[in-house]
């Protein structure tokens, strides 16, 4: 947790380490909580096809549908946050397909069934639509009681995935938004 590290860093210069660490943590918590709450109060409206999306750009192509990603941009199943491969199958940490209970699928010899490709959602969009994909910026909203990070998939494109003109959004250096994805954090809001 960055807050904990920062508070401890503040306290590290003091001889009364325990007290200051707790006090620093409290101060940071109050300050950041107030900031997030204030930020979210004014930004909760105007949802589009998923919560937090405030403009009309369409979803990036995703193996399950809703463009939920993990922190590295790989696809997750929106309903439960489970990692999926490009075929939409739930997988384990090594990319091998698992059943609903999380058990590895095995072939008749008892070996795990082979892993299917797993592609970052923005990369898959770039490959499918022929542009150099890049994740530049993001914005945050409160969705379902958690902070959601909304991520633009950017490229040097004229048109976005919807087919009409692309906008700059949170893209930099001349890139424009092609499609959008989201990452659900565990931070309550």
């Amino acid at each position: 947790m960055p807050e904990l590290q920062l508070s401890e860093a503040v306290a590290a210069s003091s001889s009364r380490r325990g007290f200051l660490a707790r006090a620093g943590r409290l101060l940071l918590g109050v300050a950041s909580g107030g900031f997030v709450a204030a930020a979210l109060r004014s930004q909760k409206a105007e949802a589009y096809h998923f919560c937090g999306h405030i403009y009309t750009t369409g979803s990036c192509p995703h193996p399950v549908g809703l463009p939920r990603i993990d922190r590295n941009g790989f696809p997750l199943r929106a309903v439960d946050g489970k990692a999926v491969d490009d075929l939409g199958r739930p997988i384990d940490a090594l990319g091998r397909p698992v059943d609903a209970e999380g058990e590895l699928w095995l072939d008749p010899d008892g070996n795990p069934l082979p892993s299917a490709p797993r592609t970052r959602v923005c990369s898959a969009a770039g490959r499918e639509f022929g542009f150099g994909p890049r994740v530049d910026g993001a914005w945050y909203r409160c969705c379902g009681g958690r902070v959601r990070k909304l991520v633009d998939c950017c490229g040097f494109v004229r048109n976005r995935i919807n087919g009409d003109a692309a906008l700059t959004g949170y893209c930099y250096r001349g890139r424009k938004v092609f499609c959008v994805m989201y990452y659900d954090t565990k931070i309550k809001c």
Partner: protein
Amino acid sequence: MVGTVRAARHDGRWAFALTAAAFASGLALGASVVFVGLGLLGAWAHTRALVVAAVAIAAAAILSDASGLRVRPQIPFQVPERWRRRMPLPRALLLYGVLLGTGLTTFVPASAAWALPALSLALGDVPGSFAIALGFATGRALPVLVLAVGAEETVLAERPHGLRVLRLLTAASLLLALVAGEVRAADTVAVPGGDPSVAAADLAWQRPGVSGFLSRNGTVTPLPGSDPAIGGALVAWHVGPAVTVAARDTLGPVLQQTLPGVQKLAVSDRWLVWRAGPEIRVLPLSDPTRSARVAEAKRVAELGRPALDGDLVVYHRASAAGSWLAAVDVATGKRHRLRFARDALLLNPSLLGTSLLYVRASRCSQQLRLGPLGSGKERVLYRLPPLASQDRGHERHHTSQGERLPCPHRPKPTTRTLWTTALSATTAYVTVLRPSRGGRTTPTLLAVPRQG
């Protein structure tokens, strides 16, 4: 038309026979052009939607003919009447036959006539379409010729029950054809059974936890080992690390070799290939003391079961970065990448000559595909739904605007997985894995005709 054919009887028996033959030939010619053309078109643009549409049209035709509904749509075009006055009768009847054979002219007596072009298009197969064409031509020619020989033209019009019975028969035939087509689409060879291997008329497979089996001329023989492979005049199996290569006809051993870690085998008259853990190896049967590595899987990649035809080994390599089918000429060491996919799973190839059979599992379907070894047009011989469902594309209480779904039609996913393959001159074999408890799977071996 009956009257026109009957008119030839006035010129004698031979003239009548010539006229009747010309009419039947014209029908066959016209029907062949149309239906074979549709078959070729279907082969070029084969999609699941075509098959679904054809089956729907056929089902509607069966219902219509069985319940005696009016045949709709009807065709308002007539054959040119002047031909029979201006041309010799055989030539006129030949041309009438061509026009009627196309199905684009005159009264449509049964709704089944509309199902046949759709089925031909969906079939996407020239021999099958030709058979449909001949059936269509026969169906049109017989009533005309029979009535021309022995009855009045008005007999069907005066006895509508005759036409009713004909339509019932047509509906039954169409239903039978659909059912037979579905049954022929995939025959079960063995349950449980998988990992097929085929050479000439012999088929071998593995029954999990039991042993390999060999089927020859309808007789199934258990083999004294597991993971059987056949190729050329040989058959191979293993018991633990002890591998036996035997003559296919007598099962008499020609080579016994210990190969640590052996899991899967492939054999030809000159080579024995096996997969052991992360590598595939080969040894020449003429000198079994030296073996060589064919391929090795690094880190998280996985190598599939090897298949061998002559000197060429094919196998799949699958990883999270992509999957591909590779071929290695074990005589020269030359390597080829046959297929590659970044977003699909290519599995368990087998080959026969220049034909390649393999499984392609993508986001929206699983397919058993047959194509040339190099690049070229492929055909889907068998298909299963995808392995995962999709969500609605939008969250609850949100609009659908901007959503993007992976498959055009919401798929009904399956847990059955297409797996290992084998290819003969007439039949493609594929293992279907069915899930059981604890992530385990049970194999079923299916046979799918290469044509049709």
